[in-house]
């Protein structure tokens, strides 16, 4: 059992947890503690230091989207993203509920609203009280300061004026043409200006202390405000749910439509006269059509971040598979045939360094030529173009590695094939491909990593729904909350990239026949 777990950890590239497992099994605890400290403790400490530096530095830089978010703010933003996602799912579910389930959900929502309303109003009154209290407190604090400031300003102005007048009087008596006397006067004027400057600065400083007092935040008030906002938000969400459980509900809408249809049908049955009958018939048909439309309709769910993540991962895999489907056969041909290799080398060398930013617009236009109407198309052209861009940028490592792997099959193994007179295909599938497989997978692993990096940029540029689009939307929103959500994206992208890499490592190891440890 223990060795099975250790083996699994080893294959998954998670050897860091090896000492933990050994410790649980009671194998040489001091040694395991030392290892845990080294492989788990130190990374955690580093991470904490990183968080600490971040927390310290972030509030010290103010941007037009507010302060740079601290880890706490980013955590809140992440929670917010998740709550939004859960709520949207709930609404979508509500839209489709019918019968007793709908009534039960309705009762639940109503109960929650009844529970929350008094809390919210209490919070509101409390907030109002605190606001007036804080205002009066500020006024008290600021009142004397303000008076002092006013007096100081008056004094300064008077001083300045007096100095100016004295200077004018002096200037009146200056002899004309006396350069020395005029130089002395110039020095005096300059002295006067410097003095006015320092006085003005002192006034400004004073003023800013008053402003700071106004901006003083009362922690108690802030927490009540946050609480109140949370109540209000939930209430709003509940009222939306209420709507989807009653008037906006699909089954309710259908039953309403159907009762209307019954009326219309009976009207049609009893209609008299050509014109009226025709009109009644048209009405019946129209109503039937509208019911069918409602039955087909679904809740128009917005693209929440988790859904965009799923879409991005789907997109990267589509691109990755397209890329691999091109790269592996081409690589095998390159490895087998020198002619083919010579033919492809210039193309590979030319296209390999091209940036995704260049490929994307080209691909976008070409794909757009095939798909005229994005709404009815089987795949959205933006999705397809990002996938193809991923494919174009990620196929090179696989291609080169496959060619290398196929070309460098051990000569001994080729000799075996020659002695046995294996045919082309059994030589390919029994000797060449298995022996090239570890290198091919190493290439695939690099490709997937490249693809994931390219994808985010591609989505951002061609606004295909996904993580890249999310970042772009958040950037355009420009509020402090969306700023924090962009930080969440950084971590999500990192974690998913890491997971993709781990998956590839496991695959790579499972095909590597010599059991050689793969570089992590």
């Amino acid at each position, binding site marked *: 059992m223990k060795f099975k777990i250790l083996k699994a950890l080893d294959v998954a590239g998670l050897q860091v947890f090896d000492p933990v497992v050994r410790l649980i099994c009671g194998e040489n605890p001091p040694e395991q503690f030392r290892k845990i400290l080294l492989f788990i403790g130190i990374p955690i400490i580093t991470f904490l230091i990183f968080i600490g530096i971040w927390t310290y530095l972030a509030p010290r830089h103010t941007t037009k989207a507010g302060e740079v978010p601290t880890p706490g703010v980013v955590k809140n933003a992440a929670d917010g993203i998740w709550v939004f996602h859960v709520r949207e799912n709930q609404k979508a579910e509500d839209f489709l509920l019918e019968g007793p389930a709908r009534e039960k959900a309705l009762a639940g929502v109503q109960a929650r609203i009844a529970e929350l309303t008094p809390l919210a109003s209490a919070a509101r009154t409390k907030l109002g009280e605190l606001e007036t209290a804080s205002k009066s407190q500020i006024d008290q604090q600021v009142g004397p300061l303000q008076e002092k400031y006013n007096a100081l300003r008056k004094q300064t102005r008077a001083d300045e004026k007096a100095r100016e007048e004295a200077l004018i009087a002096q200037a009146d008596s200056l002899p004309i043409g006396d350069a020395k006397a005029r130089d002395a006067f110039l020095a005096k004027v300059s002295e006067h200006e410097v003095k006015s400057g320092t006085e003005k600065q002192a006034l400004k400083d004073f003023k800013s202390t008053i402003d700071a007092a106004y901006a003083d935040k009362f922690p108690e008030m802030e927490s009540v405000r946050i609480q109140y906002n949370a109540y209000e938000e939930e209430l709003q969400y509940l009222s939306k749910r209420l709507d989807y459980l009653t008037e906006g509900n699909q089954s309710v809408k259908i039953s309403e439509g159907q009762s209307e249809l019954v009326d219309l049908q009976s009207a049609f049955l009893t209609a008299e006269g050509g014109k009226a009958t025709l009109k009644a018939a048209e009405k019946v048909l129209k109503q039937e059509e509208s019911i069918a439309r409602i039955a087909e309709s679904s809740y128009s769910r917005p693209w929440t971040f988790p859904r965009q993540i799923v879409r991005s991962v789907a997109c990267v895999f589509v691109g990755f598979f397209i890329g691999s489907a091109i790269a592996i056969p081409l690589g095998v041909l390159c490895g087998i045939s020198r002619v083919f290799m010579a033919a492809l080398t210039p193309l590979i060398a030319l296209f390999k360094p091209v940036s995704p930013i260049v490929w994307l617009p080209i691909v976008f236009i070409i794909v757009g030529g095939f798909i005229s109407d994005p709404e009815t198309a089987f795949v959205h052209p933006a999705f397809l173009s990002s996938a193809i861009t991923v494919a174009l940028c990620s196929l090179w490592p696989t291609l080169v590695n496959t060619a290398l792997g196929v070309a460098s099959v051990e000569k001994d*193994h080729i000799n*075996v094939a*020659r*002695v046995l007179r*294996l045919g082309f295909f059994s030589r390919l599938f*029994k*000797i060449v491909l*298995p022996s090239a497989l570890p290198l091919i997978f190493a290439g695939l692993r690099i490709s997937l990593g490249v693809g994931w990096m390219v994808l985010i940029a591609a989505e951002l540029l061609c606004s295909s729904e996904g993580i890249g689009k999310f970042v772009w939307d958040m950037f355009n929103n420009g509020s402090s909350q969306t700023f924090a959500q962009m930080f969440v994206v950084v971590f999500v992208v990192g974690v998913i990239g890491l997971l993709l890499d781990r998956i590839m490592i496991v695959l790579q190891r499972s095909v590597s026949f010599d059991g050689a440890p793969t570089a992590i």
Partner: protein
Amino acid sequence: MIDNRYVEISNLVKAYPNPFGEEIRVVDGFNLTMQKGEVIGVIGHSGCGKSTVLTMVAGLNEISDGGIVVAGKEIDGPGPDRAVVFQAPCLLPWMTTFQNVMMGVKQVYPHASKQQRRVIVEYSLSVVGLADAMHKYPREMSGGMQQRVGIARAIALKPKVLLLDEPFGRLDSLTRMELQDVILGILDREKITTMIITHDPDEAIFMCDRICMMTNGPHARVGQVMSIDFERPRNREEIMETDEFYQYRQRLLQFLDDCEAEKHGKGPIRFDQPTEPAVVQVG
């Protein structure tokens, strides 16, 4: 007639161009005839072209001049009728022992049923003493065991000629002795026409019917051919106790020394019959 001249190597030449574009004849005029079921050892200093001759017989190395006829047919490229056991086991690491042997069997017996092929594979593996390790991967086995698989793979092909290219070269001496006994047993029983490349005189005397001593390269050729007249089946201990063994051994070492001396320009070398394989009686 064919049985007496089962394998005929006549005037075999291997030439490589040197960096100046001149032709260097590594092997020059190698002549040898093998009877059916005969075990021939090829011995010589390293680098004299022993392996080149063997790979040419196997068809893995192009023949520059001369010809090789096996069972009345001139060879053309490699084929399963001339099975090779290399110095390295050359097993495919992604296949089990069984699969490694089966790959060749499938190729040689295309019309046999699955059951028949299975029997062949299992038999040849049990001959080399690997009946228990049939489903192991090469990385799970020692070098000696891997080499046994290589031998099993070769004999499973039922080859006309078995070519052994220093099959014990990379093994420690204990494993080497074990494996020599395994091969000797197979040769005693199956009577496969065999060519063994070696640079170990004891091994050559112990296993072969005739030993072909090669001169030093370049222009390597057959120096002397010596018959070893021990009865088969042979037994290592018994052979070691005979006087003949030491005479054969003396003669071989003498030849090798002479070759070395000639290389340094110290003395002539005795050629018996340059074009026809000579049978030298000792004793």
